């Protein structure tokens, strides 16, 4: 069946270091991928997205990489800050269905 999974449940990094959060997906029909950040008591907040016709997309301090060959997605956060501490979810979808399939989530802990 369809599934999206994360390789590491918790990632702890030092403030100022770069963070890499990984995600595997299994639905080869998925053509749109999103990273969400969820802080305690809040809903998922959009960070960055990427379509399957791209392999890299950059935002402000964040980069998403897509490797369709191995069905792998990663989120890179540059110069991680304490405010980046949250749970990060990857999600996949076939873009015309309106249905997101979320991964399990990775907790990012930033140590000052």
């Amino acid at each position, binding site marked *: 069946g369809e599934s*999206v999974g994360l390789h590491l449940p918790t990632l702890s990094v030092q403030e100022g270091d770069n963070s890499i959060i990984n995600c595997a997906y299994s639905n080869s029909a998925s053509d*749109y991928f999103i990273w969400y950040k969820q802080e305690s008591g809040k809903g998922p907040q*959009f960070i960055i997205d990427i379509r399957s016709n791209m392999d890299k997309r950059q935002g402000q301090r964040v980069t998403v990489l897509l490797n369709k060959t191995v069905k792998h997605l990663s989120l890179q956060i540059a110069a991680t800050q304490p405010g980046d501490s949250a749970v990060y979810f990857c999600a996949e*979808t076939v873009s015309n*269905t*309106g*249905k997101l399939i979320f991964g399990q*989530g990775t907790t990012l802990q930033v140590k000052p």
Partner: protein
Amino acid sequence: EPEVTQTPSHQVTQMGQEVILRCVPISNHLYFYWYRQILGQKVEFLVSFYNNEISEKSEIFDDQFSVERPDGSNFTLKIRSTKLEDSAMYFCASTLGQGTEKLFFGSGTQLSVL
């Protein structure tokens, strides 16, 4: 920045009771969604809604669930007879266009069924 608002933030109910979770999507958005997240688990899709009808629903969204857009601003999720396993955080989301480009989520309603 416009946001999706949900009320109440917490809802406690007895098993078998009906609950209605309320959402006000972003005003110019046309596609509406409900997701839920059981404590410690992934966010799960429940239902999508467009043009006053359900576009897609998951296996979770059985006959006990219904959605409605009673007026031009509210979007509600009703659970007719709650079960213990319905306890979860329920998120409403909306987007302007078709698909899930930049889905905006509300802060959620924590439903506790006792």
